[in-house]
């Protein structure tokens, strides 16, 4: 997909709930060696939303901060797309509630997206298209989740909560998105049927034919299109279902661990699903300098990947001076909870009051 010269990011911000649970706690409940499990997944803790937090509240907080960074008002946004697989309503858009909360309503378009963990980057591409075509000046793309894992399922070790919001426009960009490509197939690696509370997954099938195939093919296509080599990038962000997959995919593609490091959040906050790549990119932008190049590849089960070739502009310096917390600051306020509290917060106790 060819982009116009000037389309990119004007503002960004992320939000992650305060609560955390460690793999040891989860393992203790189910008679498993949680510590070893966590070590295997390279996850030391994961975020847990409070009962009064959901995709609407996470998106709203991130959106408010992103607008502050961009220096725009709600009425300057002409489109809002929220990507998630845990929208609070099955029917009634998250995006309209977010739009009302940031005073973007009513002269705008809005919709919710769902594509497992890559719904957020699908929202990026939609906003880019609308901006590139001249249909809108500014759009907002959000990726956020409060992901679900059935009690006792391996997903419980990683399924976490968080999200990030991006203002996409064509002027005053802090980073240009120079190219985007996608790679999409019908791959049944992970799903949740309508009306079901928890997802099902194909276990090891989620690896080679799913995550790795899509992430590597999509990234390779981006490199081919741009003519860039992996070492020309200062940073790389890959979807992070656990701490192992992105490192392995990066290595296979020729990216180093150093390039991944700033955006590798999964170790402490877990897999934030649609929030994963948007948060990883936000943490990377927090550290980026003018001229830095960032390669981004998301992954969503079902399955598909979106890759982006991003170049940071000199505006990043001004944006950093605005009073908006960095991802490191947002995630630094943490409180660890036992499995019992986690089960209550995630509505896993049947018949509870």
């Amino acid at each position, binding site marked *: 997909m060819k982009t116009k010269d000037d389309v990119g990011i004007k503002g960004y911000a992320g939000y992650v709930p305060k609560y955390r649970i460690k793999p040891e706690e989860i393992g203790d409940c189910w008679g498993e060696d949680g510590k070893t499990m966590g070590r295997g997944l390279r996850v030391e803790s994961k975020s847990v939303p*409070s009962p009064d937090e959901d995709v609407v*509240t996470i998106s709203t907080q991130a959106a408010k901060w992103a607008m502050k960074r961009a220096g725009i008002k709600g009425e300057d946004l002409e489109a809002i797309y929220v990507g998630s697989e845990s929208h609070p309503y099955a029917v009634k858009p998250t995006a309209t509630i977010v739009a009302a909360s940031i005073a973007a309503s009513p002269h705008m378009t809005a919709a919710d997206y769902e594509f497992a963990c890559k719904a957020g980057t699908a929202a990026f591409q939609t906003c880019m298209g609308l901006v590139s075509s001249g249909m809108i000046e500014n759009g907002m793309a959000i990726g956020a989740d409060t992901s679900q894992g059935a009690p006792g399922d391996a997903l419980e070790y990683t399924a976490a909560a968080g999200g990030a919001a991006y203002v996409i426009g064509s002027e005053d960009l802090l980073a240009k998105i120079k190219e985007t490509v996608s790679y999409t197939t019908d791959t049944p690696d992970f799903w949740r049927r309508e009306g079901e509370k928890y997802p099902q997954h194909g276990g090891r099938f989620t690896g080679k034919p799913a995550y790795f195939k899509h992430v590597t093919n999509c990234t390779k296509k981006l490199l081919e299109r741009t003519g860039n080599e992996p070492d020309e990038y200062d940073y790389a962000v890959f979807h992070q279902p656990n701490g192992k997959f992105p490192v392995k995919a990066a290595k296979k593609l020729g990216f180093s661990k150093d390039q991944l490091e700033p955006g590798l959040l999964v170790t402490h906050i877990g897999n934030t699903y649609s929030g994963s790549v948007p948060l990883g990119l936000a943490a990377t932008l927090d550290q980026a300098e003018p001229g830095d190049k960032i390669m981004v590849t998301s992954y969503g089960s079902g399955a598909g990947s979106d890759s982006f070739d991003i170049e940071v502009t000199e505006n990043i310096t001004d944006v950093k001076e605005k009073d908006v917390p960095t991802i490191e600051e947002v995630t630094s306020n943490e409180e660890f909870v036992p499995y019992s509290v986690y089960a209550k917060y995630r509505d896993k106790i049947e018949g509870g009051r």
Partner: protein
Amino acid sequence: MAIARFWREIKQRYKGIGVKCGNCGEIFFPPRDICPECRRESYKKMDEYELNGTGEVITYTRVEDPHPEFEDLCPYVMAIVEMDEGVRLTGHIVDVDYDDIEAGLEVEASMRKLGEDGPEGMIYYGYKFWPIDSRRGE
């Protein structure tokens, strides 16, 4: 809560929009149609005014015998917060240890779930407060 009533109050609950008396300049939240001081002088002069969302705790308490809507959050903290504009609101204080709260604590509004009409019903969102520094690495 009735759907229509909540819908009418969305601006207040999501954005903290009150009114400012066009006659004396006093700010009110929740909005009023008439300024109690200026009375008829304020008629049709009560303009929408958005609170900036920050204020300080005046007084607070920990609730251990919760309202049925908030049982999942028990124990939780309720406070009276004086906003920068002078109006006082009642709201939850979230994401903070009770021992770290004191009168004068600077807080900011953040949107949270206030409740829902059961698993099938509408979800109500609105402002709660957290310490202003709680997400700034301090």
